[in-house]
């Protein structure tokens, strides 16, 4: 009887192996596994055996039954497409290629910055890209004869005001929104202003007439230089890692006093010196300072009562550093080969 069982098992497995379709399967099931099939027939003979033998052969018959049923359902599933195949598939074959879209890296970096400052309770503000001379310059303490107003730096719109002066321009910085924000919200004020800016200069790998900045302002009572320093430190740590250090030096911007440049430890070489930081170990990233009293006044805020800090980054530069992009023109190029990497 044991022999019979083993014989049946071998025969079944062999035929199962050759089974190609549901018809074959049905036939096998009927012949071997069904109530009137051969396995049932054999098991029906168990009752004629001695008690000892009955137990031994019964166990074997049960295990064979289980095995055959499992194998059967495995093959059945593979034929009916419900699960793993018994045919070894090349697991290294590629998946389907789905079409993909991509965001501009400026958007990626800008989102990152917006999230940092939103978490600190800053508003995210927007402003006009076509600005007036007043907001872009005068309100920011850039007097009429200042070199920053040179035609060579600013795109003016071909429209003259009552005094026969070009009065409209493409904003050269996001800073005009500082004053607009002060006028609208007053003090205290916490805001960042990301956006598109323009400078009238010929483009090459390092210069672009259309670029992106983000700047932040914090106006309150007793905002001081130690606060500014602290702020720049945490921003650097969030952008470039917890061990990032800040180094400040004087830099003139008309709308802040004192005015500073902030350098951060080069995140690529951790300050050891590399090609990107020109072997200095530092990356010049941020312009900053305490808001000039004239700017606060232009915004309708009393500088004797309130003070403020301001800082700004170039988003192009951040993106170039972060992703190792060598040519600033790529951002506005609409080149798929560029965008596809982000």
């Amino acid at each position: 009887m044991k022999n019979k069982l083993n014989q049946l098992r071998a025969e079944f497995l062999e035929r199962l192996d050759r089974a190609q379709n549901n018809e074959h399967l049905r036939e096998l099931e009927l012949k071997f596994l069904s109530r009137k099939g051969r396995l049932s027939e054999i098991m029906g003979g168990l009752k004629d055996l001695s008690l000892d033998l009955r137990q031994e052969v019964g166990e074997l018959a049960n295990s064979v039954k289980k095995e055959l049923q499992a194998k059967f359902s495995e093959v059945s599933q593979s034929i009916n497409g419900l699960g793993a195949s018994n045919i070894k598939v090349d697991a290294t074959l590629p998946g389907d290629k789905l079409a993909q879209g991509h965001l501009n890296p400026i958007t990626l970096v800008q989102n990152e910055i917006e999230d940092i400052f939103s978490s600190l309770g800053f508003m995210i503000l927007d402003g006009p890209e076509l600005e007036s001379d007043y907001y872009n310059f005068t309100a920011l303490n850039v007097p009429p004869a200042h070199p920053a107003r040179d035609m060579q730096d600013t795109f003016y719109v071909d429209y003259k005001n009552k005094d026969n002066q070009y009065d409209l321009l493409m904003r050269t910085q996001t800073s005009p929104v500082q004053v607009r924000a002060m006028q609208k919200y007053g003090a205290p004020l916490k805001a960042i202003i990301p956006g598109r800016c323009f400078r009238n200069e010929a483009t090459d790998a390092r210069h672009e007439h259309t670029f992106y900045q983000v700047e932040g302002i914090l106006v309150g009572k007793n905002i001081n230089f130690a606060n500014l320093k602290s702020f720049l430190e945490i921003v650097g740590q969030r952008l470039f890692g917890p061990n990032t250090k800040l180094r400040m030096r004087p830099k003139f911007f008309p709308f802040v006093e004192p005015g500073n440049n902030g350098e951060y430890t080069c995140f690529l070489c951790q300050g050891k010196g590399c090609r990107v930081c020109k072997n200095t170990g530092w990356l010049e990233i941020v312009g900053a300072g305490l808001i000039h009293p004239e700017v606060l006044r232009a915004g309708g805020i009393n500088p004797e009562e309130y003070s403020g800090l301001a800082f700004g980054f170039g988003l192009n530069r951040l993106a170039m550093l972060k992703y190792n992009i060598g040519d600033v023109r790529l951002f506005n190029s609409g080149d798929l080969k560029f965008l596809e990497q982000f």
Partner: protein
Amino acid sequence: MYISLNWLKDYLKIPAKIKPENIAEELTRHTVEVEGLVNLTDQFNHVVVGRVLEVGKHPNADRLRVTVVDVKDKKLNIVCGASNVAAGQLVPVARVGASLPNGLEIKESLIRGEKSEGMICAEDELGLGKNHEGIMVLKDKAKIGESFAKYLKADDIILEIDNKSLSNRPDLLNHYGIAREVSAIFNLPLKPYDKSFNRKYDFLGIKENKLEVKVAAPEACPRYLAVKVGQIEIKESPAWLKERLVAINQRPINNIVDLTNYVMFDCGQPMHAFDAAKIKKIAVRYADKGETIETLDEKERTLSPEDLVITDGREAIALAGIMGGHNSEISPETTALLLESANFNAGIIRKTSQRLGLRTESSLRFEKSLDPSLPEIAIFRFLTLLKEVCPKMKIESALIDVNHADLNQISVELDLEWLRNKIGQEIPREDVVNILEKLGFVLDGKSDGKLKAIVPSWRATKDIATKEDLAEEVLRLYGYDKIVSQMPVLEMALPEVNKERRLERQIKNILYLKNSLNEAYNYSFVGEEQLKKMNIDFFNHLKLANPLSGIHNLLRQSLVPGLASNIKTNQFKSDDFGFFEIGRVFFKAPGSLKRDKAGEEFLPYQEKRLGLVITGEDDLFIRLKGVVDNLLKNILDQTVEAEFAVLDNIPGWADNNSSAKVSVLGQELGVIALLGNEAGENMNLKRGVALAELNFNKLAEMVFDRPAFRFAEPPKYPPVTRDLAFVVENKILYNDLRKEIMDFNPLIRSVELFDVYIGNKLEGGKKSLAFHLSYQADDRTLTAGEVDKIQTDLVADLSDKFKATLRNF
């Protein structure tokens, strides 16, 4: 700007422990950015003194000579092209390995078949002047084999300072100014500037020889000093003078020109020397319209009435503060000078210099507002040095000083308590006092809590006027590193959310993740040619007054041209792709943002738009409609449907047959269309393109105003679906038919188009539209009878209204 360390040492005793690197670093930390540090010895590495032993003809070239040069350790074969080379000369030899200041790297080479183991150098190759007439022949005292740097005594170290970091510090465009900062940074004593020279000149014949100087425009020329000096001999400058100038990259010219330059780099005052024989008097005035002057660079300049000129009473002899005139120039025959040391208005100099495209060391200084007390100091400095350079010189006139300058002394009060609050920590009073005094401030009122600081004249032109300015001076010299950072303590407040920005992000994510579109950032500028190609009218566009080029001279009024160009840029890189952009467009009509504080005028209207473009093989118009509909559902809610209706004004770029206006919830948002064939051909596009442009601001308002979405319980009773196809005239619009069906009976819950057929199985001019109709009631299962009844009525209704017939399959 270049600063020589040896020059600084004229005014400072720098202890050995302060290395040049420290000076560069600390100047950067406290004052101005030092971009580089150059050891002059290094630039003459591998350049030595050699003696020419033999000069022979080159076998293969008439103009070349083959020489043998002794450089002590070796005799070198050198091919030389100079005609003045001769045996016995002492010459500078660049040996193999030298890298010359002009960029040339010396290697062993074959020149027309002859071996050459170095180069005998001309002046220009060594960066010592422009002379390339022949090789430089050295003086007899030169020692064979010694380094050329040693021969030149070029043992100087040069600091390269970033000019941009000096934009508000005209006082630093010279050695004394930098020396003052170094003295303040390292707390070193600074030698007084004008103690080192003689002010006791005998200005002879004050009455008889009074020089006539007239200033017709005192606001443009607040101060003008002049003096006539005779018995001058124009010659080469003495070695010390040439060395100083060469060290800071200035080309020596002759003793007088070099000396004016020297004084400028020494104390910051530009000066000019006229040939006194060529002019009788000085008159400063504005130029006449169209007046011309030939400047020293031998270019004729046409002037305008805003330009300031120095004249001899008749014609212009110098462009004030910028460049001298050719007609009054010093020449080798000059024997008497008329010396000018003046102060000019910064704005006037800047404008003229800019308009003429003529920037000089002089204009660079004047345009930053110079100290009006400086001309007097400088003229004495010049005369003292002139005596040294031309010992026979004789002063032949009175010192004329036409002085309209406002030498108002600004004083600023600094409250130390205020300073502490401004900085966030206490800076000891003695440090504050020491820093300010080192910088030249005179302190008054020594009461404990307050200091009164008189601003030195060289900082009072524009630079320092308020207590904030003083705070910066104290802070930067005290050191930013010494300030302990401290986060501000602020009241908590819920910031206003920028909903527009949030929506922008949401839209971008949908478009790039779900619709596989790429984000373009296109320029805000377009050009006439580009618009012409797309058949877009450009007359109404805002123009730039000073565009970089004709392709970017107008402000865009649509995102479409940029997006169409994006397709063109990439059409050979991919077959099936698309872009989106969210950006601003600009119109002449005023918007709602104020132009200035008065608020009577407004900025031009600047609308934010969302633009979409796709290209590929099939069904572009339909595909893009799907993108738009899907986007609107996502950002408004799932019950919303984009509506596409016939456009009244089809834009020039759009295809007449495939274009529609896009609306949602009854509000018009923009257009969607295929790019017209003409535009596509003009742009050389190789595949079809579909474009859509929506008003982002309007869309945003709709999103913000939309009431919160409410969940609707799914119906409990099953729907009955029927498929129906209607044959109608081609001109009948799907949307009209659909609306009629939807509105026909409340039990009709959805109408979905699944086929459009136009072909030979139908009469000409007709089309068949096939719909899945879904009937459903909330309170019962509909019976077939109920549905049939509605359907019969519907067919009758459509036949009545659209002459639609039910199609038999």
